[in-house]
């Protein structure tokens, strides 16, 4: 779960929103399929009604014909027979691997089905033919068609017998024909009886399936509602917690910022008003120190404002990098030179003796900013001893190690060391060292933007800390990837 905690709030929300959209999409699909299945089952049950009715009518007309010998009864029988035969045409076509939908459609329409139901009928047959309820119903239907075939056979026989008597009026002949028809009429009754059983079973099976699907859909809907409800609840709690935390951090940050800005302002206003009041002698050498103090306070103020602007730029994604090949040895040497006077004042030695050139892909200005910050921290937190800088190539990356013999960082402060505002929140007066505490946050963010990183390698209270600063070596595959990525971002 560590990776989850490390995600930014924006990424967490993106994940949650995607999750909700996914669940909603699943819900919609589920709802649509459910409706389609229910509608198809309704159409099949309705279709079975039409099928049974037509079959009964066909049977009755055939029976009537076998008594009346009236050809119009036989024609009626044939007409009603078209309904089950149409459905059969659709079924046989649907059994093929690549059915011709037009043949299926005309079959179902012949079966008396509504044209708007045809798509649902096809959908259920093709996608659910192996599902138990549908499988059983199809078997009933197939068996029904076998029975219809038999009925057709019986019908043809009856028709042949009746036709052979056309024109003859002798009562004896009539009686003979009728006695020939008797076993066929019995067969019609038997077929009808078997068909009634199949028809009832077909509808009952599908209805049972419909009830089952209703239960499943209900369960899915309930589960989805619970999941969605829980997610929304968790989000609400999370937002509540965050907003309380953000408010606290914000007010602490504002208080810290105003305190930090006031300190150099106090000096600038105080010293200038003292000069104006004649508290200092107007001789140049007497004014040197106060003017130096005004200058350094102004520069400090500028640093603070620049840090704040950089943070704001980074948050709004407007930070631009000017990537190029940077000679790390030279960059470190320049920084050591700048910091040397500050270190000497505290009697700290800065040791950097590398003569080897390493080229990294980076923004020189940002690299110097990071080095300035790491060295500045090392000097600030070290009261005696030395600060040692070394470079180390590790595959495609260059590590710059800054090791000091300072006061070290307590375990409970390490976690928040690289925080944005958290660090300033730690800034209780007992660990007061001035500054906004944004330096490490900015350094890490800048390094990561350049494909590298900044981290605390080790630290021991009273003995010192070691920070590592990693960048991509120039001309490596990783470096080329970074160039491409950043080029895309700033188009």
């Amino acid at each position: 779960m560590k990776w989850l905690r490390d995600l930014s709030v924006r990424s967490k929300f993106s994940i949650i929103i995607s999750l909700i959209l996914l669940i909603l999409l699943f819900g919609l699909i589920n709802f649509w399929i459910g409706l389609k299945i229910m509608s198809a089952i309704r159409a099949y049950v309705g279709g079975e009604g039409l099928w049974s009715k037509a079959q009964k009518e066909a049977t009755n007309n055939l029976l009537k014909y076998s008594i009346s010998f009236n050809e119009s009864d036989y024609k009626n029988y044939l007409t009603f027979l078209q309904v089950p035969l149409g459905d059969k045409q659709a079924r046989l076509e649907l059994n093929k691997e690549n059915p011709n939908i037009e043949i299926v459609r005309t079959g179902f329409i012949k079966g008396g089905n509504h044209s708007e139901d045809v798509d649902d009928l096809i959908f259920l047959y093709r996608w659910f033919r192996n599902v138990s309820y549908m499988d059983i119903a199809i078997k009933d239907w197939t068996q029904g068609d076998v029975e219809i075939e038999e009925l057709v056979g019986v019908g043809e026989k009856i028709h042949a017998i009746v036709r052979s008597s056309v024109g003859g009026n002798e009562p004896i002949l009539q009686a003979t024909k009728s006695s020939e028809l008797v076993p066929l009429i019995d067969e019609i009754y038997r077929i009808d009886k078997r068909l009634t059983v199949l028809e009832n079973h077909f509808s009952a099976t599908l209805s049972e399936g419909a009830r089952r699907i209703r239960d499943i859909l209900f369960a899915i809907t309930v589960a989805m509602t619970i999941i969605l409800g829980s997610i929304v609840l968790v989000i609400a709690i999370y937002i509540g917690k965050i907003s309380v935390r953000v408010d606290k951090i914000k007010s602490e940050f504002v208080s810290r910022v105003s305190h930090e800005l006031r300190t150099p302002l106090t000096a600038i206003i105080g010293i200038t008003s003292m000069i104006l009041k004649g508290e200092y002698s107007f001789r140049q050498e007497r004014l040197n120190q106060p003017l130096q103090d005004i200058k350094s306070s102004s520069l400090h103020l500028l640093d603070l404002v620049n840090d704040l602007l950089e943070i704001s730029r980074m948050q709004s994604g407007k930070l631009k990098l000017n990537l190029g090949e940077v000679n790390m040895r030279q960059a470190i040497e320049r920084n050591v030179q700048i910091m040397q006077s500050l270190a000497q004042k505290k009697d700290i030695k800065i040791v950097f003796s590398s003569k080897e050139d390493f080229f990294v892909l980076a923004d020189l200005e940002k690299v110097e900013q990071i080095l300035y910050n790491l060295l500045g921290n090392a000097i600030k937190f070290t009261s005696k001893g030395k600060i040692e800088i070394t470079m180390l190539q590790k595959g495609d990356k260059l590590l710059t190690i800054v090791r000091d013999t300072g006061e070290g960082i307590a375990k409970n402060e390490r976690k928040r060391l690289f925080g944005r505002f958290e660090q300033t929140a730690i800034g209780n007066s007992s660990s007061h060292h001035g500054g906004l505490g944004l330096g490490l946050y900015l350094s890490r963010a800048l390094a990561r933007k350049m494909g590298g990183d900044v981290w605390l390698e080790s630290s021991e209270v009273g003995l010192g800390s070691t920070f590592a600063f990693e960048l991509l070596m120039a001309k490596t595959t990783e470096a080329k990837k970074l160039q491409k990525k950043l080029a895309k971002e700033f188009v």
Partner: protein
Amino acid sequence: MTKILLLIEDDKVLSRMYEKLLSNHGYTIEVTDNGEDGLEAALRDRPALILLDIGLPKMDGMTLMHKLRQDQWGKTVPIIILTNYDTDDERLKGVVEDQPAFYLIKSNNPPETVVEKIKEILGSTFQPKS
């Protein structure tokens, strides 16, 4: 006899400024740049007044004042809090209980106000309630 004032302030520029200002007005200033040294200096040298910053290394101003008030001498010494924290800041919670003589926000008060306050307090018969 010049009165000794103790300034406990970790910002070098500011301590230099206040030192110059107060010595111009005839005070002798002792300066420390952290809370621990400040407390030690106060108890050892017993200054006439303490100018105390709040955000300090090693021991913050609030703790220092609280410890000082436990001491027989320390409980009556006038303390001017010189800080850039606002009065409603979390770090200053409970500041009244230790009865500072005055509370000054550095950036909002010109140096002469500090001098005026010191004169006012040292000239008066300031006695914190015990």
